[in-house]
């Protein structure tokens, strides 16, 4: 019998492999309530995989994953669907349904998963869209929105079910620095106001230090550093040091294809 953890999320010795490529090699991680954990790492290092494992969209090859007292890896599909209602996810490219307008996108989880009346749904959608500053774009289609606007609608959609945990996959990727800061601030404000825990995956340093209350670095399938932002900045780990400085010299590029490009 495994002891039920007091954390919101716990990963215990998780291994994951895609065909020949080992992505996670014994990752253990805990997330406490109200934390904003930033997971950093190179592109393709398996950061997004961690989010998909927590949602139960992917199954690990070994190890176990808990959301509160529920072991995600052992749930039936039906139970898993129920658990997912308590977790929000904001995708890198927003993943709004292109055939529905902003209002319908945000209302979708409420319409499909709750018994709320049309007025209640309208009220909640208005409220969430106001929180992200998109209340006057209700009837616009996703294709008419800019990247930053889409991100905000996606955030409203993630908030609409009042989740306990929100997962962000590269929330500021592809946005200009000003809009990135706006999104960062929005995430900080909303997660604090709604008292929700969040896990943010990013490789953008500035955003990471602005948002994170805790930072973890994923490298070669392992968490090599896990600390508060100030401590993280002072890390003596050479990989972390190179990642923070963005330098070409160091252990990260050794033996990689990218190293050849620098020669």
């Amino acid at each position: 019998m495994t002891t039920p953890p007091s954390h919101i999320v716990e990963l215990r010795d998780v291994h994951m492999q895609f065909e020949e490529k080992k992505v996670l090699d014994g990752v253990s991680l805990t997330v406490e309530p109200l934390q904003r954990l930033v997971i950093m790492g190179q592109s393709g290092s398996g950061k997004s995989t961690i989010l998909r494992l927590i949602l139960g969209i992917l199954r690990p090859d070994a190890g176990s994953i808990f959301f509160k007292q529920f072991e995600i890896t052992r749930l039936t599909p039906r139970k898993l669907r129920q658990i997912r209602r308590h977790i929000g996810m904001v995708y890198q490219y927003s993943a709004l349904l292109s055939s529905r307008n902003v209002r319908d996108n945000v209302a979708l989880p409420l319409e499909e998963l709750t018994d709320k009346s049309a007025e209640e749904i309208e009220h909640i959608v208005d409220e969430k869209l106001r929180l992200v500053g998109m209340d006057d774009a209700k009837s616009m289609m996703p294709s008419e929105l800019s990247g930053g606007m889409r991100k905000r609608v996606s955030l409203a959609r993630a908030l609409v079910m009042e989740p306990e945990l929100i997962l962000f996959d590269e929330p500021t990727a592809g946005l200009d620095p000003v809009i990135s800061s706006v999104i960062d601030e929005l995430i900080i404000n909303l997660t604090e106001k709604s008292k929700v825990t969040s896990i943010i995956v990013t490789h953008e340093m500035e955003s990471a230090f602005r948002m994170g209350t805790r930072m973890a670095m994923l490298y070669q399938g392992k968490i090599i550093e896990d600390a508060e932002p100030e401590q993280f900045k002072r890390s003596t780990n050479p990989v972390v040091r190179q990642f923070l400085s963005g330098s070409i010299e160091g252990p990260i590029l050794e033996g990689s294809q990218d190293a050849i490009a620098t020669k």
Partner: protein
Amino acid sequence: MAHQQSEGSSEPLLQANPVLVVQGIGQAGRNLLAEVGGMFWFVVQTFQETLDRIREGRAPFRASSFFRHTERAGVESVPLVGLVSFFLGLTMALLTGYQLQRFGTERLVPGLVAIAFTRELGPLLTGIMLAARVGAAFTAELGTMKVSEEVEAIEAMGIGPLRFLVAPRTLALFLLMPCLSTISNIAAIFATSLVCRAYFSIAFVYYLDLVQDALLIRDIVTGVFKSFMFGLLIAAIACYRGLNVKGGAAGVGTATTSSVVTAITTVIGVDTLYNVVYVIFFP
């Protein structure tokens, strides 16, 4: 491993090697079985998700979503199905009529076309047309949703994507297919009546008598049953292909082509199998 295989296939000498031929056949057979199995479980899981939802005491999907699909798949297919069947009925009546006229038996034309369409050509033609028109649309739509992570986002919200996306499409096509093949039958029978009137001097009233005499309830029931089956097959194949798209825009293109080819082949194959079983066991 993949590297070795591509090296092997690039040498024409090796292709004649019987071991490789047998291996190739085995591999193709395995892929086929995996495909059929995958599709079967896809349908089972769709049913399961939909039933789970009904057990929770909720409607499996919104009526508006269902009717949007019936309109797109069904109502908008009426002109195509009607027109093609009309022309085919016309051609069939003309060709058979001229042959039968030589023996003075052109009175058989109405019955011949009516039986051929209600029992066989109506459902088959409609099946082929819908596989191309609606099946391709379903695959492309779901494929694009899959590629742009929309399907995953739906799943991540806790909404069953099979229940939400596949069930309304499948039910719409399942229910609309018999209606469309009935339209196909009527169009063909109407076209034949025009040919019979114009070339073989069979009056409309007499024509209707001949059709009614020739048609058995059994023919109609067979046709309707087949149509239900084809509707289910086409929708299942199209949605399965759409939700299994891999690799961007090119993947959507490949999946759509494959969906249409698979659906048309399956419809014709199942139709043949059905006829064989029907003729042997219910002569």
